[in-house]
């Protein structure tokens, strides 16, 4: 049972990290949005697995919310933003593809190192995915600082949020529901405000 549990969550987590790497080598914004959508679906999958095998029924609600909000509504907002400014699809990130992938690899190794004490104290069957969650957090942060297009930066930020949600799911079967709902509200509001501001600005780097 625990072996299945561990394997399923590891699969979901690994898929999430791989989908973050898509941003490194694809240069089309629609591909970023798709990657984020699929990553959110994978997160919802991990949530559902934890709800089912970890016996935390309220996580089914959280998984459904992830699916609805991050898998459907937010990607639609992002796609809408891109549709309003078509044509600028090619990207010239601050760091080129090869270097980006190399740095991501380095960050993944660093994440394993950093998360060792954490993985040592958590005794849940899901603990194997903790380094992946931390790697996702670091790689997302790298996306935020290394991409020029605003939408790519927003996708990086949303992937960062996904990474933290994954960390909470794998490390402690999710944070208390009231906090979880607050986080959802903040993500939704944040993205709405971002899309309201973006038309007025050109490409500016976050630094």
């Amino acid at each position, binding site marked *: 049972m625990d072996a299945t549990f561990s394997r399923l969550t590891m699969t979901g987590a690994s898929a999430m990290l791989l989908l973050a790497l898509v941003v490194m080598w694809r240069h089309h914004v629609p591909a970023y949005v798709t990657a984020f959508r699929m990553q959110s679906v994978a997160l919802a999958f991990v949530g559902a697995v934890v709800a089912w095998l970890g016996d935390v029924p309220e996580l089914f609600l959280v998984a459904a919310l992830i699916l609805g909000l991050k898998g459907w509504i937010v990607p639609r907002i992002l796609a809408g933003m891109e549709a309003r400014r078509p044509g600028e699809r090619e990207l010239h990130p601050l760091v080129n593809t090869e270097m980006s992938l190399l740095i991501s690899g380095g960050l993944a190794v660093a994440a394993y190192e*950093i998360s060792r*004490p*954490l993985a040592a*104290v*958590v*005794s849940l069957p899901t603990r194997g995915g903790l380094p992946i969650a931390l790697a996702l*957090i670091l790689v997302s*942060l790298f996306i*935020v600082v290394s991409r020029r297009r*605003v939408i790519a*930066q*927003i996708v990086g*930020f949303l992937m*960062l*949020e996904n*990474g*933290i949600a994954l*960390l*909470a799911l794998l*490390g*402690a*079967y999710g*944070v*208390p529901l*009231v*906090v979880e709902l*607050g*986080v959802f*509200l*903040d993500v939704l*509001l*944040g993205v709405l*405000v*971002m899309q*309201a*501001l*973006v038309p*007025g*600005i050109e490409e*500016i780097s*976050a*630094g």
Partner: protein
Amino acid sequence: MDAVLVVALLAPPLVGAALALLVRRAPQAAAWFNAVTMPVSAAAAAAIALRLAAGGAPVIVGNAWRLDALSALLALLVSVVATLAVWLGPGLDRRGETPGAEIRLHRIYANLFACTMLVAVSTSNLGVMWVAIEATTVTSALLIPVRRTKAALDASWKYLFIGSVGIALAFAGTVLAFVDYATTGGDLELALNWTTLRTAAPSLHPEVAQLAFVFLLVGFGTKAGLAPTHTWLPDAHSEAPAPLSAMMSGVLLAVALYAVARWKAIIDVAIGSAFTDTLLLVVGVATIVVGSASLLSQTQYKRVLAYSSIEHMGLACFGLALGRPGVFAALLHLTGHALAKSTAFLLSGRIYDRYRSGEIGTASGLLGTVPATAVLFAATVFALAGLPPFSLFLSEILIVQAAWRAGHAALTALVLVLILLAFASLVTHLQRVLFGEAGRDVSRGEPASVPLALLALPVALLAWIGVTLPEPLRMLLTHAAEVVRP
């Protein structure tokens, strides 16, 4: 009784926002309503603060709300500054220059902004605190580009984005601490309650606690304008409308630092204070360096005020690392900064209205054109420069003293030099603004108004605190410092 106090504290801004939202036709009426209700919040905060200063029990409502001395101090600062900002906000000026739609937007978001800050300092749940602080970013970012200029939009975007990413890292830290707590087998529903977590802190794992604190410091530090992630602050604080700048600079930074102090209190129980103190010392001094060194080269008066905020947040962060006397001094410093900086920003709004320019070179001859505003502005800048009799002089002395006693001789000397540098820069800029020739098209004479007289109040308060350090405030600060360093 406790429930009544909490409702009186949190409801006024919420009702104010709802009213401004619903009453589309008469934004002016909503603004006046605001001017009456916001002081209710301040009165409730004062009642709570007085009770805790007298050694009373924390205000507790169920598992949701808990205000100890530290919370009470911040709630008082937030509500007082919000009241000042309400009174000097758009819609209350007689000339009626501001368009109705702008008044309405301002009233909606400024109220929600005040409310999110009050929730952040009143909640007992560290997760909810995070949610509220994240929400401050959203509510305030919308208000920066209210006039939709390119510079304001850019500033707003930078603020929103860097703030959101930073604060997400603070959530990662929160989750790490939560995961650590979960391994100790405690009750998960109450896990993020500050008291629960602090009671359980001795059984947290040192390495995980350290990792969590690093994330928390980077995250909340970004919102507090600490180096190296302070880059959004000068743009956001200088482009925002004056009443919003006053709230962002005067109290939002303090609320973010409050979050750091709350977590420090827990992590210190888990691993001793050496680790958090060292980090805060390094970050604090780096922030003071950035703030002081950038002050002199500024050409816009609002940017001068913004960099001065960075310097003062650095000082407060530095103070938090210096044991209980240092925490006391840091909290006194935040109090003085909240009063002085919010007043300075509100006055800068009046200066801008007269000169229609944010440049120091253009807005000169202030004493000749708007004498009363000029005198008050000079007083607040002197206060920010750390001159007696104002309270920031006292708190800077106490911070330096605490650093010396803690054995950081070299850092003490460095900080002293930086304080002097900041002082010299501020006074240089001030004399350029006060004296000199105003442009020919700038009209002279002060528009007589109640709001201006209101701004003399915080200035008097700063001097009063600086000279006497009133007993209730001293007790409140003492108890608040005990919360951070028991």
